[in-house]
């Protein structure tokens, strides 16, 4: 289970996370919040992309500060702009390269790659250049490239931000069908209806933690207060 204990982080003098303590045990967890609320930094702490200034992030016995490699093998990460995540020229090569460090051998590598491409509808595009795929297909490729390493947890940082409705639904269906635990950071509130738990980030803290309907209600109210023409906040 992913655990955060008193996690704080700043960029220069700007605090973006303030003492966040969480146990992330549920199968589907959503995280929402306005821009600048600390969502992306929180996401990046979960697989060691960002090491907190204070506090600790762990998965079981592993700690992101001391065991970043082990954590990254167990916690996959998908970014909002899939284009930046595609490294190799073709689809099949991009999925394969994630397995190189695992030294699985040719047969096992091919089996895993073929299986993941078929499962995510990319088998017909295996030799196509990844950067020429549609937005939705690029995001599926980014997902496939991470899932082929069989992580226990998948952290997705706004994976549908750059997608149209059709592709958003496609990514949603894909995430919905995964066996892995998913921690989804998103602005797309519709994706969270079936989730087990939703956190609302506000000014670097978890301002609400509960069921999706309640969390979305809280977040909407928070936004209404922030944009109130009376100027009660911000």
């Amino acid at each position, binding site marked *: 289970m992913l655990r955060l204990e008193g996690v704080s982080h700043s960029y220069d003098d700007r605090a973006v996370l303030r003492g966040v303590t969480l146990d992330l045990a549920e199968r589907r967890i959503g995280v929402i919040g306005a821009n600048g609320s600390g969502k992306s930094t929180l996401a990046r702490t979960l697989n060691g992309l960002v090491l907190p200034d204070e506090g600790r992030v762990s998965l079981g016995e592993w700690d992101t500060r001391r065991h970043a490699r082990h954590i990254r093998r167990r916690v996959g990460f998908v970014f909002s702009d899939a284009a930046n*995540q595609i490294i190799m020229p073709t689809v099949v090569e991009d999925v394969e390269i994630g397995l190189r460090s695992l030294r699985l051998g040719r047969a096992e590598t091919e089996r895993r790659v073929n299986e993941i491409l078929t499962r995510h509808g990319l088998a017909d595009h295996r030799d196509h250049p990844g950067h020429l795929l549609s937005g939705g297909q690029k995001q599926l490729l980014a997902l496939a490239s991470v899932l082929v390493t069989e992580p226990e947890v998948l952290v997705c940082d706004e994976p549908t931000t750059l997608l149209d409705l059709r592709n958003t639904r496609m990514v949603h269906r894909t995430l919905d069908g995964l066996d892995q635990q998913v921690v989804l950071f998103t602005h797309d509130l519709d994706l969270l209806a079936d989730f087990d738990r939703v956190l609302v980030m506000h000014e670097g803290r978890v301002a609400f933690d509960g069921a999706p309907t309640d969390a979305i209600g809280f977040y909407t109210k928070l936004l209404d207060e922030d944009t109130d023409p009376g100027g009660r906040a911000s």
Partner: protein
Amino acid sequence: MSVLGLYVPGTGPLHRIPAGPKLLALLVLGVALIAVADLWVALTVLVVALVLYPVTGLGARRALAVLRVLWPFLLAIGVFQALFVGAWTEGVRLCAQLAALVLLANAITLSTRVAEMLALFERLARPLRRVGADPDRVALVLALTIRSIPMVAAAWTAARDGYRARGLRNRPHLLVVPVIVHLLRMAEATGEALVARGIDEDSESAHR
């Protein structure tokens, strides 16, 4: 064909030959062609290189595309040899050698996956471990270099579209800064993705 002029899926004879023997054959042929330095040998190899494309399923169109890019250089070399050296046959031989080798190298690129090429470079770079080099990283750098070509093109297109959309004309130097900024952002994001995917395994230190 990809916009990078890279791998073209296929099952022809060139596709079935591993990367190592293909590159070795190109090396041997290149050395022999230059050592022999004969006009008729050079022309024969050029014809063979041209015929290779349709015969191996790569298509004559791809061979012509290479020549279309190459012809200004060939013309310059030929004219230089004829006017300043006074040996037009030498010019024809040099042009034939150059065209033949570029066509053959391109045929290897089109029929070999980048991953296969990288695996070969990785094997070749293994002896460098003794002097502290990391073959995996050498292969990764090559992959990223190839990957950066469409990234540069995308950055240029985005900056040019913004330039045109704002009604700017005749000041192309204004594109330099946005292209560099765009590329730096892309490079940072790609570096972060490499770490997140565990591809750069030696990098234990996280971004802060």
